[in-house]
Every structure is written in structure tokens, then in C-alpha cells.
């Protein structure tokens, strides 16, 4: 067997591709589902926290900063394991799916909060003053004047961070969530061949390259000429 044949046999074995493809496709569905849910809940929660923080009520600010710092400092894998294996001891059993969704949402929320907060404080004071001077309340100013601008500014860093965190759906493999990597490693353990892993890698690219491109498109669409 030549080197090239050995390479093809290890990573691109035809019968294995055919046999594993349905599992990988179903793993892609699971990855997309969790990633989508994490993006929705994580970004929504992050925006909510950043908005709450802008009221500058000390106890709330302190709680948000502590939350954000801890979740940003902790490796997500550690959190996934603690929640999945720890919570049942206090009588709360969550499915692997729920744990992955919860943990990644909180991690994304922590990063998104910091990014949105940076966006909010970068909006010039004059924007607040102009809106308040027309009688808008603090909350109305935040919603209609500040957040639309802050959110646009945060699209590039937020897109990058969101991609980085949704890729962590692969952590689901250690708690039995049948996402792409879990499907691939299961197939590897049955076949003793790396082809399913290569398929998994390609599946991630199929999902995330369009996301990266979408991020770039959104970024240019949401920019506007500064007044």
C-alpha cells in the first residue's frame, strides 16, 4: 500500500463515508440546534445584562461583573462537567442537551455582556443628552437611541466571540449529546478508522464557514457613516 493510499484509507475510506454519513448529518442537525439556541439565549441574556448594568445600581453592577468575570475565566469544559455531574447530587438532573445549552448560553452571555457594555459606554454623552432633552425617559433613550448604535458597533467582536463559543458545542461529546463530534468519535470507536473524524471536521466547516461569511456581510451592512 503506498503512502497516498494509506492516507486515503485512513481519512477518506469510501465504505465508512457511506455508512457514517447519516450519523454525521444527524449530528449536524443537533449541533445546529444547540448552536442556534445558544446564540439566541446567550446574546439576549448578554444584552439584557448590559442594559441592566447601564442603570449603574451598585449591587446589580457588582453581581453582573462577578458573573461575567467568572464565566469568562472558567474553561467551558469545566463548567459543563460540574453542572452535568454535580447537579444530580443536589437532586437536579438535567439532560446533556440542557446542560450544554445552559452552560454555553451563560458563557456567551458573559462575553456578550462585556462587549455590549463596551458598546454602550462608547456612545457619546451627547446622544443621551439630546434624547433626554426631548423628554425621552432613561429607558426609552437606552432602547431607541443608545442600544441600536451600541449593537451596531459590537457586531464584529460579537460575531467572532459567538463563533468561538458555538464551536464549543463539541464539548457535548463528553456528556453524551449526539452532536457532530460525538457521532464521529462513536463511529471511530466502532471502525478504528479516522474517516468519521475527517467527516466531522468537514461538517464543522460546512456549518461555520457560512457563519463566518455571514458575519462579514452583517458587519458591512450594519456600518453607517458617522454623523
Amino acid at each position: 500500500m503506498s503512502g497516498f493510499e494509506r492516507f486515503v484509507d485512513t481519512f477518506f475510506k469510501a465504505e465508512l463515508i457511506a455508512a457514517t454519513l447519516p450519523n454525521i448529518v444527524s449530528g449536524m442537525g443537533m449541533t445546529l440546534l444547540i448552536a442556534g439556541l445558544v446564540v439566541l439565549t446567550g446574546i439576549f441574556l448578554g444584552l439584557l445584562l448590559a442594559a441592566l448594568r447601564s442603570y449603574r445600581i451598585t449591587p446589580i453592577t457588582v453581581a453582573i461583573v462577578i458573573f461575567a468575570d467568572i464565566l469568562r475565566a472558567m474553561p467551558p469544559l469545566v463548567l459543563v462537567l460540574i453542572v452535568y455531574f454535580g447537579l444530580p447530587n443536589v437532586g437536579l438532573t438535567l439532560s446533556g442537551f440542557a446542560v450544554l445549552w445552559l452552560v454555553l448560553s451563560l458563557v456567551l452571555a458573559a462575553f456578550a455582556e462585556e462587549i455590549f457594555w463596551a458598546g454602550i459606554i462608547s456612545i457619546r454623552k451627547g446622544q443621551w443628552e439630546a434624547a433626554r432633552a426631548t423628554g425621552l425617559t432613561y429607558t426609552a433613550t437606552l432602547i431607541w437611541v443608545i442600544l441600536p448604535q451600541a449593537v451596531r458597533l459590537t457586531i464584529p467582536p460579537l460575531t467572532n466571540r459567538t463563533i468561538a463559543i458555538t464551536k464549543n458545542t463539541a464539548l457535548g461529546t463528553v456528556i453524551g449529546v449526539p452532536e457532530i463530534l460525538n457521532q464521529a468519535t462513536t463511529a471511530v470507536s466502532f471502525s478504528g478508522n479516522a474517516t468519521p473524524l475527517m467527516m466531522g471536521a468537514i461538517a464543522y466547516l460546512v456549518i461555520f464557514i457560512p457563519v463566518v461569511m455571514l458575519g462579514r456581510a452583517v458587519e458591512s451592512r450594519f456600518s453607517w457613516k458617522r454623523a
Partner: protein
Amino acid sequence: MMPEGPLLSAIGIAKRFGSLPVLHGIDFSVQQGEMVFIIGPSGSGKSTFLRCCNRLEEPDSGAMIFDGVDILGKGVEINTVRQRIGMVFQAFNLYPHLSVLGNVTLALRKVARKSKTEAERIGRAALESVGLSDKVDAMPGTLSGGQQQRVAIARALALDPKLVLFDEPTSALDPELVGSVLAVMRDLKQRGMTMVVVSHEMRFAREAADRVVFMEGGRIVEQGPPAQLFEAPREPRTREFLSRMMA
């Protein structure tokens, strides 16, 4: 309609930033339909005082009687008051994410609770009054400074205020664009709008103001009709300031 008496009266307005006193008990009033200019060196407290008139700055003490009500009093709904006191800023402060019409109609929609159609009708009329009917759908960033400031004036006018505060409205403009903004202010005066203007436009003050107030060191030093204040100032400090400004 208000009977007699000033539209706005400041009584003993005092303000300090930390340990630094910036206003030492300002007494000041504006009559209905009057255009008053506040002039003075930078750091004299004139902008801070103007911002106390709609509580963008909270005075430490004193009273600010607007339309018969002390707006510094407890239980005053300041957001309601602010609909009737327009404000125009040096840096325009247009909302860059909204169109020109969006800028002018935001408070009509969200504060005055007008329908979209009604808000847009009022907004278009306000933009027409500042000569910008053709810029309704433009984004602020595509306009010249003079046009942006006229949009800002239209944004204030759209709420049908009784008083408009101008905080150095032409200081950020290129000289050739100043005229268009001053023309709008002159037109407003002719329509009877009450205005308080903090400005360095001495020639315009002399020509258009009903009264000029000279502030220095957080106090009103002197005030009077422009002819008197500019031609025959009583106070040496006023004379000194004017000679520097006119030089």
C-alpha cells in the same frame, strides 16, 4: 395661555462641580417671545446655566420657574416639561442610525405618543420650516454641519416647545455654514419663539437679540439691550471681554 410674567425665571440658581463652584446664585428671566443671548468667556458658567434650565444639569439650589411651575420641585415630571423646552447643542447630537425624519419624529412617537402618520406629518412640516424638505430620507452623516444643525433645530421644534435653548449652536460649524443656521434662528424669532442662546456670535447677538446677558465667573455681570451692552457697557469686565471678542 400664560397671563403676565416671564416664561422662565431662574431664582438663585447655584451649582458646583465637586468643590468647584460654577454658578453663584443666578437670577435670570425670559419673557414670552424674547430672544436672550448669554455671552461670556469660556468657564463663565453660561453653558452650565443653560443646561440647568431643562435640568440636564441639576442645580444644587434655587428655583427654576417655567410656565408658572418650579421644575426643580418634587413630583415634577421632568420628561413632560422637557417636551416644552427644546434644546439645540453645539455638536448637533443627531442620532446617526436614524434618518433625518426619524431623528425629528422619535420623541413625537415615543414621548408625545403620536401615530406614525401624524408624527411624520409634523416632522415634515418642521423640516420644511428649516428649509430641509428635500433631506427627509437622508442619513445625518451625509449632511453638512449646517444642515445637521438645522435638523437638530427641527427636532426641537417638532415637539412644539414654548422655549428653545441653544448651546453654542454655530461653534462647531465652518464659517460659510453659520449663516444658514442663523437665518433659521432669525426666522424663529420672527415667528415669536422664545429663545435663550449661549453664543459667541457677537454680530448676530447685536443684530437679533432683544437682550444680552454677560456672565463671568459664575455670575451675571451685566445685562441689557444689545445696543447698550455692546456700545456702552457699564462694567469694566464687560468692556474688556468685548474688546477681546471684537478684536
